[in-house]
């Protein structure tokens, strides 16, 4: 495989301008993540201490093997919702190593609203369970949830992907033979009571842990019976009388030690269906990505420059380098695992779509996971292209993306708009993981174009009443539309709504992908099978 010869001029003015801009974006990301993880009012930490509880970060750290990587997912979930008052959607989710096994961890963060479930908390937990199902990852739940946040119950209770899905997914995971361990570190009430109950193994902490369908106040209101939380559903009762819980723990650390001992006897799956060679770092420094990603999202750049800073030895075997050049396709190794890469070098045309569809089938047949690097404004429009069958060729690419049975991974590197988002394995196409870069924008249409269309529509409505609008009046309509549109196409909004699994500092992309790829290999790949291609 040939090494990509980078032509990036690291001394150019443009490179330096980009570098400065993207380093600022990365610093801002780090700061926002730090705040979401650790920034809490002192009174919340005091309350935890008073209750004899560890902070969720300490719990997760104690659970994981020291000095092993933890890929935290959706750290900034809900950062644009609920006035920013529910950092991380009050949940910590990530992939890590416990007693040598790859597991996914889900932990309620009781320092935020006592760990109450908000609509986006439910979405984050359901997503964690989806990841467990798709990748057959054993799961550890650290339960400390005050219950659902009732004022918003209509947004998380009754629908298909609402809270019931957590329990359904737990049951499906169990049916698949993928074990779960739950530690009850706080009250698990109502639907939350079933999280430990549906786990193959659960551990209760004396004093603080409790499981009941209705807590003492509910019982009192319903039947007049007066009962303490400990007596109603404490650790001693559930481990010795009801059999709802399996292990009694004296403290949180004791419970974590038991959980580690349980996980240590889980079966370790072989990952036989993929070849692996010795990994090798890229020939170019990842920090140069900062100078390559353009400050202006509209500026074109060569995706090979990105690939050169992600893959082993910067080596890339390009497939059909002379055909359909707006979609770069080829093979590379990432930490020794072979991957097939599809990366946008411009808008999608008929030929690039055909090339992409063909390349996906080829990777699927030879069992090569797929990596999509998105920088796509959509499919080409216009009379000539419609006559050339751009829609049916796009349909082929979408059919191939949907049908591929090898794991898919998607990075939103820059722009992601229109049907291009879909054809490049967007969230709706079940890639195993989707990550965004902080500069990225995702929306049905670009902000300027959309604001133009929306302003035009609004101006026409108003004009019917008052006659023509002045330039100032048009600008007054246009600006707020543009502002809201920009806000809602930002990476921060996308990650707030869990359209991705988190924003990555570009220099961390290689490591994050390696962990995600390794996790995905816990599941065997189905045999390739597709729907009907419109030829």
């Amino acid at each position, binding site marked *: 495989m040939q090494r990509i010869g980078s032509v990036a001029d690291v001394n150019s003015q443009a490179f330096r301008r980009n570098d400065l801009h993207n380093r600022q974006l990365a610093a801002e990301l780090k700061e926002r993540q730090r705040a979401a993880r650790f920034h809490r009012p002192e009174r919340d930490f005091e309350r935890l201490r008073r209750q004899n509880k560890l902070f969720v970060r300490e719990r997760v750290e*104690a*659970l994981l093997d020291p000095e*092993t990587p933890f890929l935290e997912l959706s750290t900034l979930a809900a950062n644009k919702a609920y006035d920013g008052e529910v950092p991380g959607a009050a949940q910590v989710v990530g992939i890590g190593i416990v007693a040598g096994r790859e597991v996914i961890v889900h932990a309620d963060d009781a320092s935020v609203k006592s760990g109450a479930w908000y609509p986006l908390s439910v979405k984050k937990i359901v997503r964690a369970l989806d990841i467990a199902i798709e990748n057959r990852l054993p799961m550890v739940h650290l339960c400390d949830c005050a219950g659902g946040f009732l004022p918003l119950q209509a947004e998380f209770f009754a629908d298909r992907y609402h809270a019931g899905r957590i329990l359904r997914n737990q049951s499906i995971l169990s049916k698949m033979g993928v074990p779960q361990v739950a530690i009850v570190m706080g009250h698990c009430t109502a639907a939350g009571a079933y999280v430990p109950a549906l786990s193959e193994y659960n551990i209760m902490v*004396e004093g603080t842990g409790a499981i009941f369908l209705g807590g003492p106040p509910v019982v009192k209101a319903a039947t007049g019976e007066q009962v303490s939380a400990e007596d109603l559903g404490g650790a001693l009762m559930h481990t010795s009388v009801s059999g709802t819980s399996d292990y009694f723990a*004296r403290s949180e*650390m004791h419970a974590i030690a038991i959980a580690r001992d349980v996980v240590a006897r889980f079966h370790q799956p072989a990952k036989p269906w993929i070849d692996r060679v010795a990994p090798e770092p890229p020939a170019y420094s990842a920090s140069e990505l900062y100078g390559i990603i353009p400050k202006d999202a509209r500026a074109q750049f060569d995706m090979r420059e990105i690939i050169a800073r992600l893959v082993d030895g910067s080596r890339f075997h390009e497939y059909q380098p002379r055909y359909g050049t707006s979609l770069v396709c080829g093979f590379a190794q990432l930490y020794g695992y072979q991957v097939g890469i599809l990366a946008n070098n411009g808008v999608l045309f008929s030929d690039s779509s055909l090339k992409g569809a063909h390349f996906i089938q080829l990777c699927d047949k030879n069992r090569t996971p797929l990596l999509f690097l998105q920088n796509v404004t959509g499919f080409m429009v216009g009379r000539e292209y419609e006559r050339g069958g751009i829609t049916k060729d796009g349909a082929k690419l979408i059919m191939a993306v949907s049908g591929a049975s090898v794991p898919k991974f998607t990075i939103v590197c820059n722009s992601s708009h229109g049907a291009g988002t879909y054809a490049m394995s967007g969230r709706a196409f079940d890639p195993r993981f989707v990550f965004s870069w902080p500069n990225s924008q995702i929306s049905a249409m670009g902000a300027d174009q959309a604001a133009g269309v929306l302003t035009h529509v609004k101006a026409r409505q108003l004009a019917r009443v008052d006659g023509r609008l002045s330039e100032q009046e048009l600008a007054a309509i246009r600006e707020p539309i543009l502002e809201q549109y920009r806000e809602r196409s930002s990476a921060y909004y996308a990650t707030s709504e869990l359209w991705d699994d988190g924003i990555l500092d570009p220099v961390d992309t290689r490591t994050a992908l390696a962990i995600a790829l390794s996790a995905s290999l816990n599941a065997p790949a189905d045999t390739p099978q597709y729907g009907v291609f419109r030829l």
Partner: protein
Amino acid sequence: MHHSFEIDGVDHRLWLSNSQQGYRLHLRDQVITPVAFTYHSESSGILTIAGESEPVRFAIEGELIHLHIRGRARILRYIDPLRTLAPANDGTRPLIARAPMPGVVVATTVSPGQSVSAGMALMTIESMKLETIIRSPQDGIVDRVHVKEGESFEHDAVLVTLSKEGR
């Protein structure tokens, strides 16, 4: 969660993690690298710590490791977090021995005032053509034996009550 070993009464928290060559040893706040071990036989080999190699001989006996290194013999004890975090006499166990099923007392092996430790036999009962030993749930002193030899009892009946020592 780190591993813990006790040497001469002092606990040492440590962890071995993978590194490019061999392992990294994390000992409290220190990181020592590289660390490697080559077996010569089942009970001896060469231990390399931060570039220095030492021949060692060892014998592992449950949680005890007898180690001979640099002309000295040392004993390391692995501290199992499951045990240190959960004292056997954890106070949550009742001071009462109850009948696990209906039956008849065959023999009583303790008398009031006698000091007993957790797990010690208190009496033998017979039920469903099977003899069962009732054991002490706790360390303590026998307060009262409620059912005499030859007498029958129902499921969950109190057979023996204990009192805390020094009461």
